[in-house]
């Protein structure tokens, strides 16, 4: 399947999950759709039959609130049974409101408290290297998350230990819960900060698969230091009424007509729209 098609379906599934759950974070689930699609469809090379292989590549969603996109991509690459998506945020079901290692073995560490997934990913990368396992570790950070002090503790640590088996990606959609990053707490100059901390910095358009492919290739070739990909993205990307609007960051309850409008924006066949709304299609 074409990457663009997968990313489009990831967005549909993410919004459908949030609609049926009655809560969840749409904005930050839409902006990393291409990055997550690339990781799971091309980069990680996970084998569903050997999901606990010690030499597997690892991915950590440090911005845990974006998990609808993670679950959606897992469903579209065959790691997750489609029917599981209906249990998102529901009692006695598997897909928690933030990623939990419990019943989803491809979730490498539980996240949801910003900053921690980054440190845990660093620990995984260090643990792999300590045991001379050649696998790579990837971690997706939110931009608002960079305001956590723990991120900069980790940034120093990963550079100090020359963790070139580690690649962080910043979903730089320029918005956080309440407002623009710039109005909450300035992040710029972002490239320079990471560079000064000793990281290889690559800046791309996070919705362009060509640039994504090139950046991950460069990260793989980088020796002696960790890589950060600053992925410029649009919050709510793909949905006309959400894109660039911070109102859609927080946990929201989507109305049926909002889901329908979003599904039309995502070129969903008219014949399927009712199924997404009533939950007969996942």
């Amino acid at each position, binding site marked *: 399947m074409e990457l663009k098609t997968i990313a489009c379906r990831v967005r549909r599934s993410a919004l459908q999950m949030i609609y049926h759950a009655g809560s969840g974070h749409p904005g930050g689930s839409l902006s990393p759709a291409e990055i997550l699609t690339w990781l799971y469809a091309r980069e990680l090379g996970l084998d569903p039959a050997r999901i606990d292989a010690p030499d597997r590549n690892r991915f950590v969603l440090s911005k845990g609130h974006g998990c609808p996109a993670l679950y959606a991509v897992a469903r579209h690459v065959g790691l997750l049974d489609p029917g599981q998506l209906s249990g998102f945020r529901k009692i006695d079901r598997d897909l928690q409101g933030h990623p939990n290692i419990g019943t989803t073995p491809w979730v490498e560490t539980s996240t949801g408290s910003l900053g921690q997934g980054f*440190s845990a990913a660093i620990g995984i990368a260090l643990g792999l290297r*300590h045991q001379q396992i050649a696998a790579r570790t990837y971690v997706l950070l939110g931009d608002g998350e960079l305001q956590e002090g723990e991120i900069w503790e980790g940034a120093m640590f990963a550079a100090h230990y020359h963790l070139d088996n580690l690649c962080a990606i910043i979903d730089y959609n320029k918005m956080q819960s309440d407002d623009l990053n710039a109005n909450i707490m300035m992040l710029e100059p972002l490239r320079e900060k990471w560079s000064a901390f000793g990281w290889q910095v690559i800046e791309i358009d996070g919705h362009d698969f060509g640039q994504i492919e090139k950046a991950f290739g460069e990260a793989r070739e980088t020796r002696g230091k960790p890589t950060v990909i600053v992925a410029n993205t649009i919050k709510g990307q793909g949905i006309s009424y959400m894109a660039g609007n911070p109102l859609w960051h927080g946990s929201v309850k989507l109305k049926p007509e909002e889901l329908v409008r979003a599904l039309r924006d995502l070129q969903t066949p008219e014949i399927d729209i009712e199924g997404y709304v009533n939950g007969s299609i996942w």
Partner: protein
Amino acid sequence: MAASGNRNEASAGGAPSLIGSSGDSLREAFGKALVDLARNRPEVVVLDADIAGGTGVHHFRKAYPERFYQCGIAEQNMMAVAGGMAATGLVPFVTTFAVFCLRAIEQARLSIAYCRRNVKIVASHPGLDVGPDGASAQALEDLAAFRAIPGMVVVSPADPLEMAQATAAIMNYRGPVYMRTGRSPARRVLGDDYRFELGRGRVLRDGSDVTLVACGVEVARALDAAQLLDAQGISARVVNMATIKPIDTELLVRCAEETGCIVTAEDHNIFGGLGSAVAEALVQTSPCPMEFVGVQDVFGESGEPDELAEKYGLTGIFIADAAQTAIKRKIAR
């Protein structure tokens, strides 16, 4: 313990050779024992936040430099890094002062406990035993805080011998553990035949009028109290409750039924620590008069550990007084 791992056979008998010298601090005993115990356990790694000399892991650093990870003064990152390393099959011992474990407790909660990682958090410098550094460094809340995290085992050994045995036991246990060591020289209070078992209290001295339940440095002081009480014609039982969670309810119920009243003693706030754990265990089946010896919900200050123990009411004489009160309440019932 029911949930413990599959290598318990190594924990009891194999007392490490380096440990047990009287006068060693608990942190030294831990540091030396860890070197012995980790020799044939290549999966054990140590994380330090620039205080290896203070926590005792400088011994480990010297013995196994390739397994020692300096994390800098950044405890939050260190704690979650340990969770990540454990995810790859390693067994990290994260070491810092107890008060800085509190700083990183949310990382311990999410990235270690919620993930059910096999990480051992070993905290030196607990309680007023820290001494001259003063209140900012004297963790009086750590037992309460770590005890409240689901699945976290909480241990506070009493003397160098028990520290070495407890280090072996937590290494063999599969799951997250918080263990207190200690800064000042520790008295040997346990005999060579003592055997620590995770989740079990031990009767160190039998008695029939009252039971003194203590952990950490307070065990020695509880034994002092039992001697003082003996001179007053009171027979006090002393229990070393080195595992605070899961607590040995069976032993506590037996003590409550046989002696009729209980005094707890800990170098910790009276709220949320050993005393609370004992009360919670007993109130369900065998409530009895209880008195709590500990720091009375205040911060400490600078001073030598013995001076502070005296000022804040943690020495044997205070424990003995509390025992008298408990016995009076028992008789009045």
